[in-house]
């Protein structure tokens, strides 16, 4: 650094900041543009989408909430995501316990097959999911979505939970056994509580998938009663076909929860993501 000549250093720094600011703009500008225009009238939008609103049109938001039945959509999405996370995390914790703490033949084969599921593009299963769900009379129910969301994330969760549980010292369990812990207590009293942060990471992945999924919701549900938020966005874009700014308001409303959660939890989310990504 010290040996560089000034202009070269300046040029490098200029280039560096150009790259950083370009991606900053890419990440923020579209959202800011959508946000500002969601407070303007359609006529203002057509004339120029650059300016700030002459008068902030909060009525766009009132209209969006009313027309898109947003509370219902939110309720469905929260319900489905929460149950999917619950089923996924409990099932993965139980299986992860066996796959990490018990020794028997075929254990590693089971683990390999389960985790190899990540290689499958889930969209290639649209036909069997649809026909299976119809066959067992779960078409257009939120239960079908809970089951699919929790199952699709099994490979990722098994990987995360099992590798986390393997890192828990054996001695703790041995001490527990001496104190009279049986098989079930080893799980409920020792391994399950100790793997909490691994389970949270697995649950976060499952939640992000369930909350953001569009394909399965489109495939497996059809009525307003079972519509989730992501499917809702698609529907109001056709509902507000000429009322763009109200549509913008509706989109903004649907992204507020994720963005708010991210603003408060960004450190946890980023470290959770990297915990799984950097070798376990």
């Amino acid at each position: 650094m010290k040996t560089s000549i000034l202009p070269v250093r300046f040029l490098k720094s200029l280039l560096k900041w150009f790259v950083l600011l370009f991606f900053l703009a890419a990440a923020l500008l579209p959202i800011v543009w959508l946000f500002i225009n969601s407070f303007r009238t359609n006529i203002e939008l057509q004339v120029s989408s650059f300016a700030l609103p002459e008068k902030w049109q909060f009525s766009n938001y009132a209209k969006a909430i009313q027309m898109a039945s947003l509370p219902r959509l939110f309720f469905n999405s929260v319900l489905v995501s929460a149950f999917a996370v619950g089923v996924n995390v409990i099932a993965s914790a139980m299986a992860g316990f066996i796959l990490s703490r018990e020794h028997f033949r075929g254990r590693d084969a089971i683990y390999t097959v389960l985790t190899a599921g990540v290689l499958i593009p889930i969209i290639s299963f649209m036909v069997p999911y649809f026909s299976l769900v119809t066959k067992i009379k779960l078409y257009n129910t939120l239960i079908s979505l809970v089951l699919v969301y929790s199952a699709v994330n099994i490979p990722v969760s098994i990987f995360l939970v099992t590798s986390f549980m393997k890192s828990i010292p054996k001695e703790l369990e041995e001490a527990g056994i001496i104190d009279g812990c049986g098989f079930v207590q080893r799980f409920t009293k020792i391994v399950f509580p100790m793997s909490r942060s691994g389970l949270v990471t697995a649950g976060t992945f499952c939640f992000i998938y369930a909350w953001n999924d569009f394909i399965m919701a489109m495939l497996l549900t059809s009525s307003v009663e079972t519509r989730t938020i992501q499917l809702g966005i698609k529907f109001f874009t056709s509902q507000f076909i000429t009322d763009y700014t109200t549509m913008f308001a509706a989109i903004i409303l649907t992204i507020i929860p994720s963005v708010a959660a991210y603003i408060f939890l960004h450190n946890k989310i980023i470290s959770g993501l990297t915990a799984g990504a950097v070798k376990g």
Partner: protein
Amino acid sequence: MTKKPLSGTSGVWPLRILFLLPVLVLFIACFVYPFAFTLYASLCKWRGIGSMKFIGIGNYLKLFSDGTFHLALRNNMIWALAQGFIQVPLAALVAIILLREPKGWKILRTVYFLPNVISTVAIAMMWTALYNPTYGLINQILVDWFGKNPVNFLGDPDLALGAIIFQTVIYIGYFMIVILAAGMNIPRELFEAAEIDGASTLAQEFCITIPMLRGTLVTTITLAMAYGMRHFEATYLMTGGGPAYGTVTMGIDLYLKMDALRYSEASTTGIVLILLGSLVIGLIRKIFGKSDPMSEMAQ
């Protein structure tokens, strides 16, 4: 792993099976059965209702001579290459810059990742608005600043694919975070030693950072290409595969066939998609060398 089993673990087979059962049931219902079903359906004549009639590889022969499928195959390759060799290198570039901890790097890192927490649907709808020929930001810039005529990006067969790929690859947040985290693990001493030896920053990046990140880069490229092969949502929402099938991908092809009640042909596309996806992943690992596959595919 060679440690002797814990005492108190014998005679618990029923419990072991009970603990594995929920995962096995879900896995069989949503992975094993669907795979077997799709494979069988791809060898049958079946329109969703009635029984399946076994016809052998007829659907595959039909698929390989299907013009739409050829386009889908081409577009899938373009998607995989764009995500693997445009999105990941851009993410790596930003990560390498941030590794030097410039002013505000933590805030930048947080903001770059922000679009990744917003759903694909919302992002796709937002970009549909941005590309709109009359009120979209991009066209207003073209018209007001450069005096050009408005361009219907999503309605033009030559531009639509590029337009959708663009709104995917500029969101580098996820891969950037992964590469940055790996970069943080490079021992600082390496850079300090290079500094003393008089190596410039750029030389350090090429001789230390990039080689040390090799494994992570292979992983992220593999992942990005796998995502590219699976691409569906943004295209479905922004163009539906059009105009003139210009943006069709294998996922879209599958969906359109299913929508037209050509279930067995949709299944054929599904099987080919699974095989090609695995092939791409295997190929990348062959070319660039492997690193611990599972720990990294799990993302």
